[in-house]
């Protein structure tokens, strides 16, 4: 029975690894689960290593901070692996048996030893070209984190698309209130918010498409964590 999932995200500064973790925790909270997320980074600098952690469970969570034993590891940028831009080396250090690794890549980035160690632990590796998806659907590389989120949810079903949508709106979709000022000002504000709504939709579309692709991958590859949390949110 599902009790807890620990997710570690390694990315580079500016990719939204922190935001992704927060959104996932918010979505889980909306679904009635216990959740906590926190980031770890040094200098707040673009392209510098950044990590974030999400813990989601059906019981109260009694730990916080750095996540040493993850069930799921998500790699947002190939350089985390190829150039070891990471606080954790190797990137899958501490991963639990029957775990899952999702890497934003179109090519296999692992060497023979990595493959052997991960397969000894029965860890599945999902190479998922999230940036390509983000460019195609979200029309911006910045949606990469959304694609990664969708993939994680698609495989594990830790949260559904609806909960993610609510979290996205909660985090970014501030309600538009007429200024009560001039018509020109109101028009400018309406325009700004219309653009924002479009952006939110594009992000949600990216999440949805990625979720579906992840479901297909899961069907074919049968990872140990496949649908591990399916139905938990509802039955909780």
């Amino acid at each position, binding site marked *: 029975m599902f009790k807890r999932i620990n997710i570690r995200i390694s990315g580079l500064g500016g990719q939204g690894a922190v935001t992704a973790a927060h959104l996932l925790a918010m979505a889980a909270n909306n679904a009635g689960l216990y959740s*906590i997320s*926190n980031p770890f980074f040094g200098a707040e600098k673009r392209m510098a290593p950044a990590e974030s952690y999400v813990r989601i469970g059906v019981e109260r969570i009694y730990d916080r901070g750095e996540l040493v034993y993850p069930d799921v590891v998500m790699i947002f940028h190939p350089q985390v692996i190829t150039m070891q831009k990471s606080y954790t080396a190797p990137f899958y250090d501490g991963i639990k048996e029957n775990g899952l690794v999702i890497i934003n890549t179109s090519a296999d980035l692992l060497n023979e030893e990595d493959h052997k160690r991960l397969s000894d632990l029965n860890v599945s590796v999902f190479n998922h070209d999230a940036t390509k998806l983000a460019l195609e659907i979200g029309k911006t590389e910045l949606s990469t984190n959304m694609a990664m989120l969708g993939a994680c949810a698609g495989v594990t079903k830790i949260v559904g698309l609806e909960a993610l949508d609510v979290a996205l709106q909660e985090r970014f979709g501030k309600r538009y209130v007429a200024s009560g000022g001039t018509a020109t000002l109101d028009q400018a504000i309406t325009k700004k918010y219309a653009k924002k709504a479009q952006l939110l939709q594009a992000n949600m579309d990216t999440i949805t498409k990625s979720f579906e692709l992840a479901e297909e991958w899961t069907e074919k590859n049968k990872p140990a964590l496949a649908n591990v949390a399916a139905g938990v949110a509802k039955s909780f």
Partner: protein
Amino acid sequence: MNINRSNKRMLTGNKAAAWGARLAGVEYVPAFPITPQTEIVETLSQWFAGGTLKGKFTNMDSEHSMFMAAGSAAATGVRVFTASSSQGILYGMESLYTVTGWRVPFVMVNVSRGLATPITLEADHNDVMSTRDCGLIQLHAETCQEILDFVLMGYKIAEHPLVSVPVLVNMDGFVLSFSREPVVIPDEKSARDFLPAFQPAQPVFQASLPMARASAVFGGGTYTYFRIQQDLAVRQAETVFNETAVEFADRFGRHYEPLERFHLDDAEVVFVMSNSFATKGKSAVLRLRKQGVKAGLLKIRMFRPFPDEAVANALKGRAKVAVIDQNLAPGMGGITYPEIVAAMYGRDDCPQKILSVIGGLGGKDIKENDFLSIVEKLNDPESKGPVFLYDEGDWKQFQQMQKIAQL
């Protein structure tokens, strides 16, 4: 109780602090940003700019002016909030001593971060412990909820006529400041009923009414009088905290005591901890209990005034106690250890062993194995403190760093 009228949201510790200030209806915020505190003042600046908060938000040129401005504004009778961290606290130290002596109430948040040198960004309590003797009331938070609640309660305590002293609420950098977890946000009306507008008990500065306050005194007698007054005021805050906590619980359903007792009733082995790492301690207690060890945890929420009676009552008759300090006084050891020992002094039901442990320096994780090693040390009659939580693995990691540095 108005629990159902509250709204539960995923907030970072920083946002929770800002919400506390917002619900308190603060009227003046002097600010100076510093990692990991920035999100607090950033959020407040947006709320002031957008009109959610009425009053004035001012960016200061340093923490020294910032604390001075906080104290001065409070002396004019407005409700003041400010926040800092680490090096900022040290830079403002002169002002902190000064304004606590003025006996003006306000609330400040410290986001704990290790002090230089070496420079770092993560949680460590040497910064907040350096303010231990300033005359501030200190409440230390373990969760994002506690932060919000302590800020609200803090105003009630600080502004109490018998106290009239600033309150410092402490949270750990990163582990709490950037952690997002569910926080119940009280509705504005209940918050206002709990905490009405600030009614200064002392005369306030007004342009039309010239007045001197905090003038120089010569001869130790007068000085001593004021210092004793300050001591009495801060001590009084323990009673006021307890009264405030009852009222807070009535309204919001969450009750706080100066100490939290986690599985303590039948505990033989006790960890004394504070702040966010106490959560890790609780997790270790649950696991140790599964293995048959009667473990428990005493969490210290209030460091000033120091609740020594309560501490002595909580620890009396325990076999073994480990005081885990996330700070270091080089050449002595943990800073809070002597305070715990002093609370037990002269009691015949004193624990057989009280061990000083230093862990979590610079945000270093305290892992489950560390708690096991503390239990081992407690069981070893030869062991002496301070025990540093630093093992073979940590040493290997350091050697690796050395190798990279030499490349």
